């Protein structure tokens, strides 16, 4: 395995914030993001968590109950289930049922291929019953480009899953069932304009496959985990980090998701975001278990930052 440099000579992110007269502090936390584990059926090259089939980390039944209880006592408006592939966690049904509440927007992130592996047809119905918002990875309209990032067959499996979701009402006007796509670049470059990409994806998916969706979000790849290793191996790390830092957009800071989100790991510890989880930079600088949290993190409390935060402030930003 090639050595992975921990840092290059970038201006510290905190200093860049200060230069622009900005401060990154927590506002009212509305979203609980729940990472149910690193086990995944894919080993995507862009994954900031090194998730894959060989990973054993997964949220236990006890931790799942502790996280459900935390979501209930804090009455988070949004709960966002992610992984790894959340489908591979044996407690997923309990988590969806436990988080489901009339006042809450429940989101479920999927790579689509795990959902559509032929063994989880019940999940399609469960998502529909609880009106879960599906957030599906769909990096590219080009099969070769998508498969190069996510593994052979990923593109066609995603197309098939999207058709199934459409067939049960997801993405259809008036159904109240929402499906959003997430596209990230297939390499060491920034994402395209979200507005333009959404327009193209909508037109081409409808035209070629008859697929509809609600929204498309474009995100830059985080220079952490497997993606960082690929950046090093391909000789792109320095140029990519420079690109992120040189496109720092002070206006993006205001809308950063870490101001209103708290992320809980598969073992029940809290972080400002899933990327800080990957770097093991805990909320408030020390590991606190979800069972010890009385409520939401306090507004005004500082957010842990590092070099990777340049990804969320590059260009239009990652909000």
């Amino acid at each position: 395995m090639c050595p992975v440099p921990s840092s290059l000579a970038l201006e510290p992110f905190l200093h860049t914030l200060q230069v622009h007269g900005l401060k990154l502090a927590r506002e009212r936390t509305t979203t609980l993001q729940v990472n149910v584990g690193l086990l995944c059926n894919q080993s995507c090259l862009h994954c900031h968590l090194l998730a894959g089939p060989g990973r054993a980390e997964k949220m236990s039944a006890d931790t799942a109950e502790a996280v459900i209880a935390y979501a209930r006592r804090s009455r988070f408006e949004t709960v966002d289930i992610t992984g790894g592939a959340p489908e591979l966690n044996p407690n997923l049904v309990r988590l969806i049922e436990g988080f489901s509440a009339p006042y809450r927007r429940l989101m479920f992130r999927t790579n689509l291929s795990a959902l559509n592996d032929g063994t989880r047809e019940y999940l399609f119905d469960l998502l529909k019953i609880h009106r879960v918002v599906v957030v599906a990875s769909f990096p590219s309209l080009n099969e070769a480009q998508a498969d190069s990032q996510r593994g052979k067959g990923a593109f066609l499996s995603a197309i098939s899953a999207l058709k199934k979701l459409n067939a049960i009402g997801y993405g259809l006007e008036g159904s109240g069932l929402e499906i959003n796509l997430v596209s990230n670049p297939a390499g060491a470059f920034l994402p395209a304009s979200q507005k333009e990409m959404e327009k193209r994806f909508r037109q081409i998916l409808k035209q070629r496959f008859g697929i509809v969706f609600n929204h498309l979000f474009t995100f830059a790849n985080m220079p952490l985990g497997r993606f960082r290793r690929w950046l090093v191996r391909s000789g792109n790390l320095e140029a990519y980090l420079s690109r992120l830092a040189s496109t720092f957009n002070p206006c993006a800071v205001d809308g950063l998701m870490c101001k209103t989100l708290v992320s809980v790991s598969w073992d029940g510890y809290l972080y400002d975001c899933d990327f800080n989880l990957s770097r093991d930079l805990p909320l408030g600088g020390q590991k606190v278990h979800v069972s010890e949290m009385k409520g939401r993190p306090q507004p005004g409390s500082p957010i842990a930052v590092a070099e990777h935060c340049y990804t969320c402030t590059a260009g239009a930003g990652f909000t």
Partner: protein
Amino acid sequence: MGTYYNPEDLPKFPDIGQEVPELAQKFFDYYNAVFAEGALTAREKALIALAVAHTVQCPYCIDAFTQSCLEKGSNVAEMTEAIHVVTAIRGGASLVHGVQMRNVAQKLSM
């Protein structure tokens, strides 16, 4: 000078304005206006630029507009097709001059 083309030279392009700055300013203003979203999208303009870059064989432009095309959402298949378009025109431009060759040859031949 180890090589005529050096990737580190590309970011120095604005330095050309250190001499005759008013002309450089006019050029860069025009350049930026050309690539702004218009009747053509910025993605379409980047694809045209990439294709032309191959025709004028400018390594700086190929480097810059490959990245630009990717960041505007084009994929390698689309970028390759764009290059084929200019290749066809470039090759066709040579071939169509064969008509002149034929005209001359016919005039000179019995």
